[in-house]
């Protein structure tokens, strides 16, 4: 066993940290927060292109596709650094579509897409969920009809969060409606500027925007099909095993700021941090952060040893997102009445951060598979409990 970074890994992380420290601007932080930390905004693109020029957006990719050929451990650690710095940290192209293209795409597709993705030049929007297909992804309705050189698409997507800032749709669509469940879905890349696509904003309780998309006779070239026809469900599941991981550092940072607030805020003549209940709560959160750190780097360890994370990825996602909610809630409790105040309020504490995280942390236990779905995966795949 070894629970430390190697000196080379530590050195690279040090470079990333100092870059983040010197290059992050206020404008970037404001935009990043307004977008819910997804990639695709103007400031974000400006910043990430510079960041990615070092190979840090996809450090574990091979050099010919714009990576540095590092361990997965490094790429996991870099994502934690990005989360701590509150820069854009949710990337569909670099973290979800890219690895699938690398595994299953044709050589032509790899050559066309991987380098621009690694450089941060394009961003995708995840196109899975539909009104009737949430947790049950196989219940898709959107239909792609074979028209020779092209597909003709009609249907509707919902909760597709990057659509208003991304360039392309990473779309799951039905290509064989007669096939059995899971066997009739394909993945394709669709230019979001294509005629026939309508994007309708849906505003979340966190303040940032997600979207509903309508496909009305949209034409997609056949060369945009990812991998083989009707294999989409398999690709999506495969990608989730590789890519289901949740950096928690943005919440670790909130925790450290709440701890600092407790040290420096006096109640009844003594710092809040001397109150035993406050001490217990903050210590408990630090302990859970540490527990999550192990679940997180176990995934990297597995990838670096040629194993495919399975239920372990679900466990980390489950644990991290529930810990995130507890940190946000603990922050609210420690700040008390002041925790409710929005950023611009005269009396706001931590610039209103606690209430923002309290709102935002709700959705993280839901997207990419609800906590219930993750527990089901842990039980069925991790403990081999029977389905029927």
């Amino acid at each position, binding site marked *: *066993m*070894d*629970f*430390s*970074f190697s000196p080379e890994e530590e050195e690279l992380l040090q470079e990333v940290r100092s870059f983040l420290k010197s290059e992050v601007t206020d404008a970037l932080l404001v935009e990043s927060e307004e977008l819910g930390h997804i990639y695709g905004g103007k400031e974000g693109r400006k910043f990430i292109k510079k960041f990615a020029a070092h190979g840090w957006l996809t450090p574990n990719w091979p050099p010919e596709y714009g990576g540095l050929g590092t361990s997965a*451990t490094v790429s996991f650690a870099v994502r934690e650094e990005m989360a701590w710095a509150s820069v854009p940290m949710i990337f569909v192209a670099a973290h979800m579509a890219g690895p699938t293209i690398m595994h299953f795409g044709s050589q032509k597709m790899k050559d066309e897409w991987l380098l621009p993705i690694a450089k941060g030049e394009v961003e995708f929007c995840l196109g899975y969920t539909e009104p009737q297909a949430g947790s049950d992804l196989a219940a898709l309705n959107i239909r792609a009809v074979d028209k020779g050189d092209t597909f003709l698409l009609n249907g509707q997507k919902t909760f597709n969060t990057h659509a208003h800032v991304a360039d392309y749709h990473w779309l799951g669509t039905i290509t064989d409606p007669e096939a059995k469940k899971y066997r009739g879905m394909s993945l394709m890349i669709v230019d979001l500027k294509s005629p026939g696509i309508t994007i309708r904003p849906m505003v979340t309780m966190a303040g940032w925007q997600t979207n509903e998309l309508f496909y009305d006779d949209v034409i997609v070239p056949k060369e945009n099909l990812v991998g083989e026809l009707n294999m989409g469900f398999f690709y999506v599941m495969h990608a989730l095993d590789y890519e289901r991981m949740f950096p928690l550092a943005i919440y670790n940072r909130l925790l450290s700021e709440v*701890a600092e607030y*407790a*040290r420096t805020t006096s109640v009844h003549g003594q710092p809040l*941090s*001397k109150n*035993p209940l*406050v*001490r*217990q709560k*903050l*210590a*408990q959160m*630090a*302990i*859970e952060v*540490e*527990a999550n750190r*192990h*679940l997180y*780097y*176990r995934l*990297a*360890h*597995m990838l*670096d040893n040629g194993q495919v994370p399975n*239920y*372990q990825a679900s*466990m980390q996602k*489950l*644990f991290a997102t529930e810990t995130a909610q507890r940190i946000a809630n603990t922050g609210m409790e420690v700040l008390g009445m002041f925790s409710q105040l929005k950023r611009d309020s005269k009396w706001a504490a931590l610039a209103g951060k606690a209430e923002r995280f309290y709102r935002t942390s709700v959705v993280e236990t839901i997207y990419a598979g609800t906590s*219930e779905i*993750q*527990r*089901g995966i*842990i*039980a*069925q795949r*991790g*403990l*081999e*409990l*029977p*389905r*029927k």
Partner: protein
Amino acid sequence: MNYELNEEQRIIKEAAHRFLAEACSTDFVREMAEDEKGFTTELWNKMAQLGWMGLPFPEVYGGAGMSFLDLAVILTEMGYFCVPGPFFSTVVLGGLAVLEAGSEEQKARILPEVAAGNRLLTLAWMEEEGTSSPEGIKLRGERANDQFLLSGTKLFVPDAHVADTIICAARTGEAATEISLFEVDANSQGVHTTPLDTLAGDKLCEVVFDGVTVPKGNLLGETGGAWPVLNDTLLKAAVGKCAEMDGGAQRVLEFAVGYVKERVQFDRLIGTFQAIQHHCANMLTFADTMHFMTYCAAWKIAEGLPFEQDASMCKAWGSEAYHKLVALGHQVLGGIGFMEEHDLHLYYRRAKASEMAFGDADFHRERVAQSMDL
């Protein structure tokens, strides 16, 4: 980073598992919980022959010169099988205290006997206040010429009723941490040991020191300077206890998962029910997090890195996670898990005993808070 045991540790683990599966049935565990002595010489000697008693001690003292991480591997298997007897008190508590605090002469005299399985040790630190803080140590150690005179009462001393040597923490000054450690022959005049009847059947004792004289040469380390060593030993013991809990948690998970794959209700295996699946998923999550936190702390001890915060984090988390895991096990197993004949209650009892040992979750969270500069 590497989250797996190395080849040698895997071999140790498998060998220990096979040996204990044979030598330590749950019938035996039940019997020993009722037994006055609480263990058999036969099992003790076999464990000694395997080299377990000397595992963490350097070879010059007759030990195997292995690391705390290796020790954690053995403790995990012992926890899996609820191994009764004074291994923990002898090797982890007494042994590590002597190794840390003892002079060359003391180590060379005591540890080879321990390693050979011929000397049983224990550590006496807790008293009436029931805490692991230095302030709670009131037992006096008065200097009288070439001797010390120990007077006071120690509580919850593990296996003192069978120990040959009690390492006793005594107050030798007024400042909170002016604590000294003494090597006390358990047969000395004035040592009165009474086993206490406990939830888990482990042998915790009251030990009254009624003006016990101890030669000056039996002082371990400097007068009044033992608190750092005692604190260090208790933190390592907390990690060692977590390793036992890790093994216990694994067994309870096996009980639950095995049961839900066989038990039919409403014409279905109960393992198909989502509520049962989610209980089991939560159990596995508790087990995995306990495991990694424990082994990270054990690894840091083995590597000579600062481990205090990790030790407190894993004991705080493990204490609660193990208890919750066993409680979920009870829920999943239903009525049969409540029966004396089922083995689950052995773990339910030990989960609580382990939670209390070497500082409970509140105690260690407070230590974590201190390490966060709160």
